[in-house]
C-alpha cells in the first residue's frame, strides 16, 4: 500500500531540490513551471530530451532537469 511519502519524488531542477508527484512527466513539469512548450528546450541527466519526447519521459527520483531558453549571445 502506497503512503503519501511514496507518492512524492524529489528531482534536481537546475541544481535545486524540487518535489513532484511520482509519475510526473517532463512535459507536465514544463507546463507547471509556466512555460510555453515551444519556448524551452530540456535536458534530463545531461541528455537532451526533444520536445516530442517530453510527454513520454517520466521523471524519477534524483533526476537532474535543466530547462533552457533563448538569450542574447556573442
Amino acid at each position, binding site marked *: 500500500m502506497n503512503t503519501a511519502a511514496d507518492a512524492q519524488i524529489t528531482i534536481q531542477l*537546475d541544481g535545486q531540490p524540487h518535489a513532484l508527484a511520482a509519475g510526473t512527466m517532463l512535459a507536465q513539469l514544463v507546463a507547471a*513551471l509556466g512555460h510555453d512548450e515551444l519556448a524551452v528546450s530540456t535536458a534530463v541527466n545531461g541528455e537532451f530530451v526533444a520536445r516530442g519526447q517530453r510527454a513520454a519521459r517520466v521523471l524519477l527520483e534524483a533526476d537532474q532537469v535543466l530547462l533552457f531558453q533563448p538569450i542574447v549571445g556573442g
Partner: protein
Amino acid sequence: MMMNDVKSDVAASDAWRVGEVSLDSRFLLGTAGYPSPRVLAESIAASGAQVITVGLKRQLAAAGDNGFIDIIRAAMTEHGARLLPNTAGCRTAREAIQLAHMARELYDTPWVKLEVVGDEYTLQPDPIELVDAARQLSKDGFTVFPYCTDDLVTCKRLLDVGCPLLMPWGAPIGSGQGLINPFALRTLRERLPGVVLIVDAGIGAPSHAAQALEMGIDAVLLNSAVSQASDPVRMAGAFRQAIEAGRTAYRAGVMAKQDFAVATTPVTGNPFLIGG
C-alpha cells in the same frame, strides 16, 4: 563600360557561401551586452549583418525576454538575417553536443557556433574537446561553425571531421586586442585556400576588421566592439564600412611591402640643374 557598371559587377560576384546559403554581408554580429533592446535592433540594422549570434540560458520559471525574440524575428524578416546559436559556457564535448541539440530545437536551425572552452582565464578553445564535439555534431546533421584558435593543425582536424568553415580567434573573447597573431591567420589563409575563414573574437576596432579582410579572411564575427561602444549603432555602421573596405582592398590587391623607399614621382636624375 561605365564605372558604375564595373562596381555593380564586382559587388554581384562577391557573395560567399555556407553550404547552400549565399551571403552578401561579411559581418556577423553578436547580440549580447547592448544598452537596450532598441539599440540592439538598430545596431543589427546598421550593421547589415545577415548572421546574428544568439545563446541559451538556464531558466526555471517562465519569464519575459525583454523583447529579444521579437528583435531577432524582425531581423530575420526585415533583413533576411539567419541565426547562429552558440554553445557558450560549455567545457566538454558532451555538454556542447547536448546544448547544440537544444539550440537546434529552440531556434530551428542546424547552424551552431561551437564553443568548448579549455581555459577559464583566456577562454581559449579546447582543441581536443572541440574536435570531438564537431565530429559528432557533423554526424548529427549540424552545420558546425567552430570557434577555434589559429593553430593550423587543429583547423585541419576540424575540417576533417566535417566543419564546412573555420572561426579562428583574433584575440581572446571580449579583449578588443585585434589580430594578435597575423602570421598565424595569414598561414591559415595560405594553407587552406578556398576554406571559409571567419575571425571570431578579439576584434576591438573597425581597423582590426579591415586588417582581417585585407589579408583574405572571408568575414568577421564580433559583439563587444559594437555593444560596448559609446554609440553602438554608429559603431555598427563603422564596422560595416571597414569590412566592406577591407574586402574591396583584398580583391583589389594590396601592394607588396618594400624594405626601402621606392621613388614614386618618375623624375630622372636631379629635378633641377644646379651649378654649371
